[in-house]
């Protein structure tokens, strides 16, 4: 049979097997590890860039948010201020209105009072005249003669004044 023995050491075979191992090492290095590592590095870079981007976007968003917050806060203040102003204005106006109306009312009242006073005075005068007339007529009738109008009037007036005084 053309076979090797179970244990047969041959220097050439050992060398060739050594070279085989080195060749396979190179094959693995070139065709398995290099491409896989390259793709891993690439993916790492991609992931890092994605993370960076996300971080940047996050930062932008936070900046935007803070600016909006600021704006919102100032807007609130503005609104407060406007409302306050409006309220103040309204209150002022209210007061003015109130004052005006009070004034008006008072003037009306005053006018009415004056009117009433005047009417009263007129009425008094009227009544006095009437009384004078009536009393003079009465006296004329009673006395049967013409009396001095002037004296009469003075008399009655004093009488009425006496009445009023009591």
């Amino acid at each position, binding site marked *: 049979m053309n076979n090797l023995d179970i244990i047969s050491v041959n220097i050439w*075979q*050992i060398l060739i097997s050594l070279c085989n191992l080195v060749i*396979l*090492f190179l094959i*693995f290095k070139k065709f398995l590890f290099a491409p896989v590592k390259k*793709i891993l590095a690439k993916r790492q870079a991609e992931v890092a860039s994605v993370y960076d981007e996300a971080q940047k976007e996050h930062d932008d968003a936070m900046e935007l948010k803070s600016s909006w917050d600021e704006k919102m806060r100032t807007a609130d203040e503005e609104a407060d201020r406007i409302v306050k102003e409006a309220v103040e204005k309204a209150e002022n106006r209210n007061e003015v209105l109130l004052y005006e109306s009070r004034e008006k009312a008072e003037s009306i009242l005053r006018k009415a009072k004056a009117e009433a006073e005047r009417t009263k005075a007129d009425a008094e005068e009227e009544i006095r005249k009437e009384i004078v007339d009536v009393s003079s007529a009465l006296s004329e009738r009673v006395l049967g003669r013409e009396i001095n109008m002037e004296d009469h009037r003075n008399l009655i007036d004093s009488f009425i004044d006496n009445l009023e005084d009591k």
Partner: protein
Amino acid sequence: MTVLLLILAILPIIAGIVIKVMFVPASNGIDITGAHIFFTIDLPFGGLPISESQINSWLVILSLFFFCLFLTYGLKTKDMSKRQIVAEWIVEKVEGLVRSNMGEFFMGFGPFICAILGLSACSSLLTLVGLFPPTSDINIVGGWAMMTFILITYYKFKAGPLIYLKSFGEPVPFLAPLNIISEVATPISMAFRHYGNVLSGSIISVLIAALLTTLSQLIFGKLPGFLGEFPFLRIGLPAILSVYFDLFSGGLQAFIFSMLTMLYVSGGFPEDEYFKRKRLKEAKKQNKQAIENTNGGI
């Protein structure tokens, strides 16, 4: 394309089977012989016999080469294919193994360890398709052990020849002969461990096959004609044993061999001295440069 590469990866194994069927005389399965020799090339020191183990290991390398191409064809950063996941898994596992056993300095050993693992495991697993496993040839495994020995010595030499020589005189100088013996014994023991395990697996398989043949002849020998000749007991049991001797033992030996390589190479490497020497060298270089600069200035 991927299918083509996969076919190319399987083709060498089929070619091996074809070569075996065409050129290797059939045996009844209970011979214990070495690899079949196809022809011998005339060289000094006994000539180079091109045997089954040589051919088979070349076929394994070819197959692994195409398998690598198959795995790494069309790598993408997103939407990975299953092939890519397998490729990345292999790379990461091997790198993790190297990192945990050898440290960051030896990360370049990844492909080498992967080569040992792949070549050894695939060579041992060739028995599954009925081919002669190259790992049961002492020359093949011896070559790998030589490679390991060269690497060990190379990394021991890295810190300078003096430290290399001094390492034999430790812990006490008169142990130097023993140290030298153990140094030489390392590759031999590695080679014999691997080769012996695979070979003994085949031998035990053959012995059990022979035993079972005899037993079935004893039991079923009275049956007429062909039935009496047929070794019924050889159905089943050898397959179960083959799971241990071929699959488990083959994988385990590959792992042990690569593990020992890593441990010996990183263990023999005098790290502290190497870095000290490196620093010294750099300092010297800088000094030299400084002197040159001053000379140039003058």
